[in-house]
């Protein structure tokens, strides 16, 4: 490696790490011995490129392991902890499970964390992924270490906010209403600003009065985790701002990109749009090859001749992903909506824009990706009489049973699917339906995307057994664009929604 490169790398690293504004929040998470991930302090000194790459890849493996185990939830918590402990050991990161870190371990922890911060700072979706896994990692570390939580609380000086016993006495009813297993005898509460415990606020697991949350001692752990999340978010946003300045440092950037690039597993590249699929084929296709989410939407539109914004997005982009051309899409929506009493003129004025927008022909002209399962499952829930979303998650058991009955699968298969739904394994449930409705083969290597479901179904049904794995493992540069357009999409959707008011 030549010196020039080394020098530039050093500059890159240190300048990037040196973005560390004061944290305004009252609670301080830094300065806890041996926990560099909380960092304000960036690593100093320099490391070789090999080390750089090695550390980062190692940590990435740890985070991926966490993600994987997280996806397959439904395990007993204890079981999960044990498994993760083994995982860390196998990966050579057993120090994550201990209180005492050697100097080397500390460096490894610190440096790798910071490299990945940079790698994942670039796009919103990636940041989110990184933060989720890192937070889960801290949670595990708190499980493994007896003293960590206490040390963190000490630094946060929480004890001064403890709620006096008399007040707890008066609030017995209120506090009991927020917490299962409330026990007056050992009730210890801390009064904190509601902004410090947003998760508890959104799930109504905390008593609020005049802007203060009464935090039970049992929730201290999630309190710390939440602080950590916010802290990371701020740090990543900061790093992101700095990134454009680093763009010219090619080698590093390439490496960082490669690190974060292919690893999200949710990108999907739209098929070259052709005129293969026309809209009169959709009924037929929906019967055999649609996943339940899209089938539900398709049938809903067929009956009601209407769908609300979210539903139009979800189905419209799926159609695009199938390779339905813009013209055919327009034709489909127009026919349906007209049957629902919306005349062509109104359609062209109000809805056609949306359809073209999905195809990147309006607004910012971004080419939007069809929604992945993750997005469908985790983002906006249907309300009222909307029917977008994932039926395994967003339907009650009875409705799901009805939907499955129409697919004419065996009673066992139905029960299996309902069982999986109950445990929250939505994508696995979806794969079960695939298996039950297709000869022999199941889906290749997990289900991430409704369009993947569709394509694999088509491949099997048309007797063409060439796998479409390549689709999902497109090279990282392509993913990069997919990720980007995803971001744009959110922006644009924002803008659209901003105007989605009554007119």
């Amino acid at each position, binding site marked *: 490696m030549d010196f020039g490169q080394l020098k530039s790398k050093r500059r890159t690293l240190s300048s990037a790490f040196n973005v560390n504004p004061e944290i305004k929040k009252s609670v301080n998470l830094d300065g806890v011995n041996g926990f560099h991930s909380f960092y304000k302090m960036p690593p100093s000194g320099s490391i070789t490129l090999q080390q750089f790459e090695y550390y980062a890849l190692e940590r990435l493996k740890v985070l991926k392991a966490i993600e994987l185990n997280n996806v397959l939830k439904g395990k007993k918590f204890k079981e999960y902890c044990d498994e993760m402990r083994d995982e860390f050991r196998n990966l050579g990161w057993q120090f994550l499970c201990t209180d005492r870190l050697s100097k080397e371990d500390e460096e490894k922890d610190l440096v790798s964390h910071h490299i990945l911060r940079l790698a994942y700072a670039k796009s919103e979706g990636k940041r989110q992924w990184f933060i989720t896994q890192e937070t889960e990692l801290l949670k595990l570390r708190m499980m493994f270490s007896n003293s960590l939580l206490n040390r963190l609380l000490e630094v946060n000086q929480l004890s001064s906010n403890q709620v006096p016993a008399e007040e707890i006495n008066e609030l017995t009813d209120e506090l009991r209403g927020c917490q*299962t297993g409330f026990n007056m005898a050992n009730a210890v509460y801390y009064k904190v600003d509601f902004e410090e415990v947003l998760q508890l606020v959104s799930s*109504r697991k905390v008593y609020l009065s005049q802007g203060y949350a009464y935090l039970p001692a049992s929730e201290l752990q999630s309190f710390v985790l939440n602080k950590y999340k916010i802290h990371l978010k701020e740090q990543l946003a900061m790093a992101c701002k700095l990134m454009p300045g680093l763009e010219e440092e090619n080698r590093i950037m390439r490496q960082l990109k490669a690190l974060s690039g292919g690893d999200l597993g949710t990108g999907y590249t739209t098929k070259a749009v052709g005129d293969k699929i026309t809209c009169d084929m959709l009924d037929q296709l929906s019967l055999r090859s649609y996943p339940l989410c899209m089938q539900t939407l398709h049938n809903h539109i067929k009956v009601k001749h209407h769908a609300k914004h979210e539903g139009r997005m979800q189905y419209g982009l799926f159609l695009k992903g199938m390779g339905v051309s813009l013209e055919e899409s327009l034709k489909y929506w127009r026919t349906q909506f007209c049957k629902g009493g919306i005349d062509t003129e109104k359609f062209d004025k109000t809805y056609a824009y949306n359809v073209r927008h999905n195809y990147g022909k309006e607004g910012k002209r971004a080419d939007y990706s069809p929604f992945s399962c993750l997005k469908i499952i985790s983002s906006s829930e249907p*309300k009222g009489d909307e029917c977008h979303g994932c039926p395994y998650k967003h339907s009650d058991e009875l409705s799901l049973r009805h939907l499955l009955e129409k697919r004419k699968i065996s009673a066992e298969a139905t029960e299996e699917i309902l069982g999986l739904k109950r445990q929250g394994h939505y994508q696995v449930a979806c794969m079960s339906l695939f298996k039950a409705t297709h000869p022999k083969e199941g889906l290749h290597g997990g289900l991430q995307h409704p369009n993947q479901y569709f394509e694999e179904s088509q491949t099997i049904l048309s007797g063409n057994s060439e796998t479409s794995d390549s689709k999902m493992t497109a090279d990282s540069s392509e993913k990069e664009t997919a990720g980007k357009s995803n971001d744009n999409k959110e922006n644009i959707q924002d803008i659209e929604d901003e105007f989605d008011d009554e007119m």
Partner: protein
Amino acid sequence: MAPAVEVSNSWDSSLMPELLPIYYKKLFPFTQYFKWLRYKESGPNYFKNREFSFTLKDDIYLRYRSYADQAEMEKDIRSKCPYKIDIGAVYTCSPKLRDMVRAGEFVAQYKELVFDIDMTDYDDVRSCCSGADICLSCWPLMTIAIKIIHRALTEDFGFKHLLWVYSGRRGVHCWVCDEKARKLSAAARAAVAEYLSLVKGGANMKKKVILKYNQLHVSIRKALEIISDYFDDYFVNRQDLLSTEEQFQTLKGLITDEQVLALIKELEDTDGFGETSKLRWACLKGIFCKRMSSEGSVCTSAPLHEMPHNMKEIMLQYTYPRLDVNVSKGVNHLLKSPFCIHPKTGRVCVPIDINHVDTFDPFKVPTLHDLTEQLAVWKGEGNLLDYKKTSLKPYIESFEKFLTTLSKHNTESDNIVMDTTA
């Protein structure tokens, strides 16, 4: 079905181009409006960096407008005569100059915490109308929503400056103007909105409210206390929601309590429920009371909010506020400004006085047409401010009342700052 209230709305939206200039020239309360959005204590740039956006005739959007002061704003609004004005965020720099700064340096920083409650989200629990239509039979849903959310925002979150506004057609908006609210992060806004959301799920989720057995968050308990003041009248008299077999089945589909189901069966096999909403609802309440007695509580006619938890779920599904969470979440989300005219109804988006929310009648809100008529026929004293000659007067006064507490509170906090520096 409840008698739908006939609304003789003589509004003709083609009058907009003719009447809007008069409205903006004589009636729109610029002074008060400016006094509000200036937020004196927050520094001189607060108003300058605020985004306004217009919707002109034929749905032409103009975004990112901003003004140095009241005069500039007045001039622009009067010359463009927007059909709709939206208020956006306060940005890091003046929105009209956004092209002159680097991308990434034009960022939405502050905005009131806002809520949007829209009657279309209640279509599955209204028998009277659907979609964009409203009537006096369904309006109580808004009254209930306002009361519940107002209570939670003031008591639970400690906010003091809430401006409730009629959206001009089928819903209401809430602007929380406390400094703390204006500074909230997107995540905090989402959390507050989630805290206030209870009814979950779409067409394929029949039971949309599921409470934990034996554990009721105090905010929901208090919501139920509010709901029980309205429920019988709303459910039976105004909506008549159990008159058809289908409606009755829908409700029975929400009952999960085994004992209650057994009691229902028993009654169906003997005397039956009767045919009207009133009878059916009375029988159901009786059954739930019986259920309570079997739990040990004495009960002949319990107040609704003390009914067993399955009954609570039912009442909440029918009447608990349904927020559009997306509107609340984003700092940069635009929301229609108070005192706009709704182009479809011609009505002014007037503030709703929380102390008189029960008597607020959306059909009595003046239309642009009413107002200009009133101006034209005014015979009284000549040098009165124009709005005082019209039925807009009480609404502007209620807005002024809101402004007085807002500024009083702010001067108080100014004093505190001065004290500490002295």
